């Protein structure tokens, strides 16, 4: 019982600051303090008339979309490789591709910055996407590793044994089994990219993504506008997580249901 109270207290600690932000985004006065003066949507209205913000959001969406597509493509090949490799091969993939999770964004950011400088690559949307994939790919690999631990490699052999070609096996057996994980990981990659700040701040050059824009606002003044942006960003991450969850669960459930029916 004591444990349960402690656990919910920790959760309350994690959630309540976010709730405060959401609450103040609807505050009718610019004051960020109690008592509450009343509800209004004025900050949201201001947001939608802010052209700079609009272009930052578009930039972030573009970057996040490209990042998740590239991560998905590379991640799919990695998953298929994982199923075919032994301990050594898997260890090698893990060593080169999971380490960035355990490093501060600062390290990844500055090392990419020196790479781009050395290669003479102009900082642009391209360099942002390249960097975001470096962060998103490890997350996909970790998620995939957990999922593929449940995958029996003899399923592919069984399919070949039953007369399916290599491509048919991929299309009818392997892909349906790994697709939910891959797609939900791609969605997470989108979320990670959309929110990425530290690495971006080194490789963005003159480009402004949404977190960069929020950062510049935060440094200038404390305005309730940030609450409204934050609330939308929060809503967006929840929707993305929900999407990822639905894909991995509904697919599994429908597969089970189909099996029961037949």
């Amino acid at each position: 019982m004591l444990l349960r109270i402690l656990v919910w207290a920790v959760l309350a600690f994690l959630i309540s600051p976010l709730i405060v932000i959401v609450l103040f985004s609807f505050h009718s006065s610019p004051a960020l303090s109690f008592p509450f003066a009343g509800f209004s949507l004025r900050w949201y209205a201001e947001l939608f008339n802010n052209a700079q913000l609009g272009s930052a959001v578009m930039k972030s969406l573009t970057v996040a979309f490209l990042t998740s597509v590239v991560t998905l493509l590379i991640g799919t090949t990695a998953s298929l490789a994982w199923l075919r490799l032994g301990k050594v091969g898997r260890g090698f993939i893990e060593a080169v591709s999971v380490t960035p999770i355990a490093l501060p964004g600062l390290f990844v950011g500055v090392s990419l910055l020196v790479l781009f400088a050395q290669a003479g690559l102009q900082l642009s949307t391209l360099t942002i996407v390249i960097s975001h994939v470096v962060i998103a790919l490890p997350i996909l690999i970790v998620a995939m590793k957990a999922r593929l631990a449940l995958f029996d490699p003899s399923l592919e052999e069984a399919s070949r044994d039953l007369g399916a070609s290599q491509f048919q096996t991929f299309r009818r057996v392997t892909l349906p089994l790994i697709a939910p994980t891959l797609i939900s990981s791609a969605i997470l990659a989108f979320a990670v990219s959309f929110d990425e700040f530290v690495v971006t701040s080194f490789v963005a050059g003159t480009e402004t993504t949404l977190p960069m824009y929020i950062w510049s606002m935060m440094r200038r003044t404390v305005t309730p506008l940030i609450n409204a942006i934050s609330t939308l960003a929060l809503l967006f991450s929840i929707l993305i997580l929900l999407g990822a969850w639905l894909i991995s669960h509904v697919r599994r459930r429908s597969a089970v249901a189909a099996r029961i029916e037949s």
Partner: protein
Amino acid sequence: MNLSRTKIGAILAAPTVVYMVIFFVVPSLILFSYSFWSSESYRVVPDFVFTNYLDSLHSAVFWKVTINAVRIGLTTAAISLVLAVPVGYYLVYVSRSQTMLYLILITWFSSYLVRIYAWRTLLGTNGVLNAVLLQLGIVDHPVDAFLFSSFAVTITLVHIYLPFCILLVTSSLSEIKPDLIDAARDLGTSSLGAFFRVIAPNAANGLAGAFMLTFILVAGDYVTPQMLGGSSGQTTGLLIADQFRKTGNWPLGAAQAFVMFVISIALYFILVSLGRATGLIVKRRTINPKGI
């Protein structure tokens, strides 16, 4: 054509490996070589000198901010681990509550900057915490000291990195089968006793890993201390970041980054050998015995 399974595997692994080598391994190596180069009038010149390292190690400012970063890192990682263990235990052994897991994931994936901003709002002079304290009559005028203090930095960093720490702890605990707890209780320990005698020793490596990962990420986070720490918020990360922006001495920044890296690794080994010496960390045994 019939290539062997492993050959196909190697071909399929190529995109990932090549990408990560070009954009992660190579940059790290370039950064490392940068740390031996020199900087002349804001231009980087290939060289092989140790001045960057020597300058860093002889700089009082560098040590001050590094000690600060290590202190913030250790405090935050310790608090996070202490909070993460009961939550992880609850999630693994008591209730596999999906709601709770998703609440944790939501906080993990909610924007980094938003969370920093939230704590600024909460802790500011006109912030929510002061408003509540005034209302309750605990203080009679707003406390300025909440914001721009190591308290503000620590609580925010715990908030940012705790979800990650919980996920690490949860995954390391879930390797330990719940029937070990039943067995320990059947043999006479209380549930708390079962945790300390059976779960903790078996999870020790995983828990030490969670602590260390949290430490590394926190110690390298320079944005939070900068935004909430005021004068106490100077950390190595900020020093390094500034080298790559304002003053532009990249080789010096690179050297400082690797000094920080070495300090982190050294701390890890100190922690593990401390654990070994006190018997808290036992030699790793496989969790699943044969025949199962």
